[in-house]
Every structure is written in C-alpha cells, then in structure tokens.
C-alpha cells in the first residue's frame, strides 16, 4: 500500500512543483528516489512533528500542496493542535500521511498502535479522513487528497486486500467488492482483506454477506450505508481501531440521523483498551477478535 502511495505521489510531484513532501525523519530507504528527483520538494524536518505540521501550514499558506509523513500516531496525535488550528482553521491544502494504521506495527508496542486516530481526526471540522483497503484505493486517495482542498488524513496499512476496481474514486464514496443480501460488512482500512475472507467463509455457511470498503470515513458515503440498512439483513462494521468514535460510530450516526435503522447492527473493533501484548498484525487481530474467523463467529451469533 505504501508503494502504491509513493508511486502516485511521485507522479504528482513530477507534474506539479508545488507538491512538497515533509517527513519527520521516517522513511529510511523509502524516499531516496523522491528526494533526488525533486529538490526543493522534499524535506526531512527531523524528529519534530509539531514543527513539521506548522511548517506545512506556512508552506501551504504560500500555495504549496504539502504532505506530512510519519508513522503510527506521530503525524496525527503528537501535533493534533497544529492540525486543528494551523491547518483546518486556515483551510489549507495539507495531507497528513501515517504509515502503519491499527496494529501494522504490532510488535513495536502500544506507542506504535494507531487505534484512535480515525475517531480523533474525524472530530475536526474541515478534515477528510481516508483509510484505504487496497493498494489501488491508496493510490487514488493520495491523488484525491493532494488535488483537493483542505486538510486530509491518509491512513496507510501494512495489510492490504488484493482487490482491484475499475470504478472512479471519490472522497465521500465507497466501493462494493461483494454482493450479499443477508448482511452487509462495512470495513475501513486494510482489514478489508479479513472482511472479504470472512464473507467467503460465511458463503460456505450459506450466509450471503456483502462487502463494502468504506475507505472514506469523512466525508462518509451515506447512500451506501442507507442502502445497506434498507436492502440487506443488517450492518456489521469492521475496523482495526478502537470501537469508540471510528467507522462503527460514523455508520451508526448516519443510520440514526436518517431514520434508516438496520435490522441487525454490530460494531467490530478494539474494545476500549490498549494492547500491552505485542505480536504481528495478524496475531493481534486474532487476539482481539477481529480476524476472519472471529468476524464469522460474531456474525453467526448476530444473525441467529
């Protein structure tokens, strides 16, 4: 997913000299090519995320289209007030890219688990929040965010669903990868892979589960949520993120606000805790009941 992001960003920087990438000293072995190709469009600002975000605002005030890059929670939570005051209030073109959504860096410990970022950032007015599920979605997302207005957040995941799409990508929309009338699985981020695996396992059990990648959490695809509530047997949201305030909450808000209440509703995510246990992304997803097997078990119970 990161490669797809970087390939597209390289294209964007080649086409527009106002595209500027800032990294807070992360991306060893990743940005060398970009740096040598685009002098004046790449700065390693050091381990200083508050300054990176302030710099981004200053550059964007002067017409630059700025990408700030780091991993996990560093480009988001560490400098949240700079994002809010300097970026959002000034309507600036800044795209915050965090490599390592959810448990991507599972073995590195709690500091590197990005499990509240979506909830916190979607609370900010004038933000776009995007968590792609496929490499193609990541590529399309960075283009949409850099070419769009305002502050955007792109959450890159180590896990990726091996899907392609011929559809057009728009912020505020979603992509349906599986049809199914019994229940609709709405997922965000790379856990789309596990969601599709779960849908295939459910199929074997005679349950037709639709799968929609809700890559755009803010703005969110209300039509897709309402259709899932109206036309299928229920909605299950799946996210590698704390259960409070993320995709599940956003979907519930749409349902309640619109009055289209799903027949069944379940939010799957991290149940309000920090993980002191470490392990691979797959290990931790299984441990916290978010892998395909756990998703299937929980949906079976829901539909019984």
């Amino acid at each position: 997913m990161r490669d797809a992001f970087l390939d597209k960003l390289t294209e964007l920087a080649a086409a527009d000299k106002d595209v500027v990438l800032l990294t807070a000293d992360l991306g060893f072995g990743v940005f060398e090519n970009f740096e040598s190709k685009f002098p004046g469009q790449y700065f390693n600002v050091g381990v200083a995320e508050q300054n990176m975000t302030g710099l981004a605002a200053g550059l964007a005030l002067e017409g630059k289209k700025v990408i700030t890059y780091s991993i996990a929670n560093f480009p988001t939570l560490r400098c949240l007030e700079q994002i809010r005051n300097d970026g959002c209030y000034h309507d600036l073109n800044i795209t915050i890219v965090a490599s390592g959504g959810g448990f991507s860096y599972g073995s590195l410990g709690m500091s590197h688990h990005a499990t509240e970022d979506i909830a916190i950032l979607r609370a900010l007015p004038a933000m776009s929040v995007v968590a792609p599920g496929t490499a193609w979605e990541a590529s399309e997302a960075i283009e949409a965010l850099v070419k769009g207005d305002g502050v955007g957040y792109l959450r890159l995941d180590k896990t990726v669903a091996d899907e392609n799409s011929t559809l057009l990508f728009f912020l505020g929309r979603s992509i349906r990868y599986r049809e199914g009338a019994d229940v609709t699985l709405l997922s965000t981020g790379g856990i789309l892979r596990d969601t599709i695996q779960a849908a295939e396992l459910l199929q074997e059990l005679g349950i037709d589960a639709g799968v929609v990648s809700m890559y755009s959490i803010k703005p969110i695809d209300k039509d897709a949520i309402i259709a899932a509530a109206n036309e299928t047997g229920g909605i299950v949201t799946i996210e590698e993120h704390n259960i409070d305030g993320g995709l599940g909450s956003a979907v519930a808000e749409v349902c309640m606000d619109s009055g289209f209440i799903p027949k069944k509703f379940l939010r799957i995510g991290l149940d309000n805790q920090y993980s002191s246990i470490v392990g691979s992304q797959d290990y931790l997803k299984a441990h916290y009941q978010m892998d395909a097997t756990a998703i299937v078990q929980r949906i079976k119970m829901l539909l019984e």
Partner: protein
Amino acid sequence: MINSQNLEQFALKIRKHAINMTNTGGSSHIGSVLSIADILAVLYGSVMSYKADEPKWPGRDRFILSKGHAGAGVYAVLAESGFMSLDKLKTHYQDGSDLSGHVSHKGIPGVEFSTGSLGHGLPVATGMALAAKINKQQHSIYVLMSDGECDEGSNWEAALFAPHHKLDNLVVIIDRNKLQSIHSTEDTLGLEPFVDKWQAFGWNVVNIDGHDHEQLISACNSKITDKPLCVVANTTKGKGISFMENQVLWHYRSPHDEEYEAAMRELNNA
C-alpha cells in the same frame, strides 16, 4: 515610511486604541498589547513593505503575531494602516464580532495567520520563509513572540530548523517583558541566558531596548546572509501607563471608570 516623530504618535495611537478596545470589550491582555505597541508601530510604520489596498500583494512582507492574546494591538495597527476602518475596532470582543480576543484572520484583511495557542507562530513563519526561499521571493517574514511563550517546545523545534536551512528571510522578535501568566519568567521557568540560547541554536541575535524605535529599526536591518535573525526586544509589560507597568494583574484586568480615565490622561499627556 513614517518619520521618527510620527512613529511615536503611531505607537501612541495603538496604545489608545488598545485602552479603548479593552475598556469597551472588557477584554484582557492590555499589558501585553502595551508591551508590543512600539514594535508594531515600527514594523508597520517603517520596516515592512505592504499595500493596505492589496492585502495579498505577493511581494509584501509577512507578519505573524504568535502571542495571539495581544491581538487588539494587531487590529489597531491594521486599522491605523488602512486595512480596515477605525470604526470596526469598536466591535472588538463584542457578541457576533470577528475581532476575537486572540488574533484571527477570518474576515480581517492584513492578518496573515490566526493564533491564540502559544508556540504556533514560529513554525508557521518558518514554513512561510522556506516557501519564499523555494520560490526565490525576496520578502521577509516577521514573527512576534512573547518570552513566556518560549516555554513551548514547538518553538525550539523551529529554532533548530530555521538556521539549518539558512532562512535569512526570517525575523523573530521576542517581546522580552520578563513577565508571564502568574510570575516572572525567571521564577516560572528560567529562560536566561536567553540571548546565548538563541545564539547557540545558530541565530543572529540582536539584544535591544524594545521601546526604542531607532534601535528597533536598526535591529530589523541587521540581517546577515544565511542566518535567521532573532531580535530580543527588552520591554516593559504595560508600557506607557504607569500603574500598569510591570504588573501581572494587567494581563487579565480591563481598565474601567477611573482607571480608564487615568490611563487615557497619561496617554494624552505623553
């Protein structure tokens, strides 16, 4: 450019507006505004290039007030410089007004950047200075900070960055009035040796009397190639009103009734 006698009058007008605005609005931070009135007068009256009828003129020098709580001073200097009507100052701090207590850019021509939370101005100004270098533009970026604000770590991140990237188009002016929110800076979180700190970070530092207009002009003209400039402007909080000078109380209190009359009397006799 304004001559020295008129610069004194310009600074006096800013002080009078600030007293009127804090009186009408019942707002705080009059001491902080009085502290920087001379700096604002010199920047807008002598040092900076700008066009009041074209606030976004690309060649303009940029100014950011990082100590956003002294926003009344910026509104006053902008109104006196022709960016908005003097009448608008009467709405400061009022219900429905866009002249907020902490400086805001929305709807206010001439305000480059909104602040209020400390430690934001310098990183943003540094980004603007970097953009000017990338774009090969000749203008300068001026950012006015408070000394107490230097407690914020974000400033020191930018203080490392600007010399590393040789941003000699960046000028930081620090309002060194030695008072912060409750006690003196040195009793709260000691900043001394303050000049040495900035020098150690790689800045060209000038240490001056922040109420002396000649020294301020000379300091702003002392840029050297490849180094950002830090002007440590030694000031008196509440400068110009005897009973406000060096009193933390006037970080919070607004002048009413007899206090207002006494303050205006002092300024009218200055």
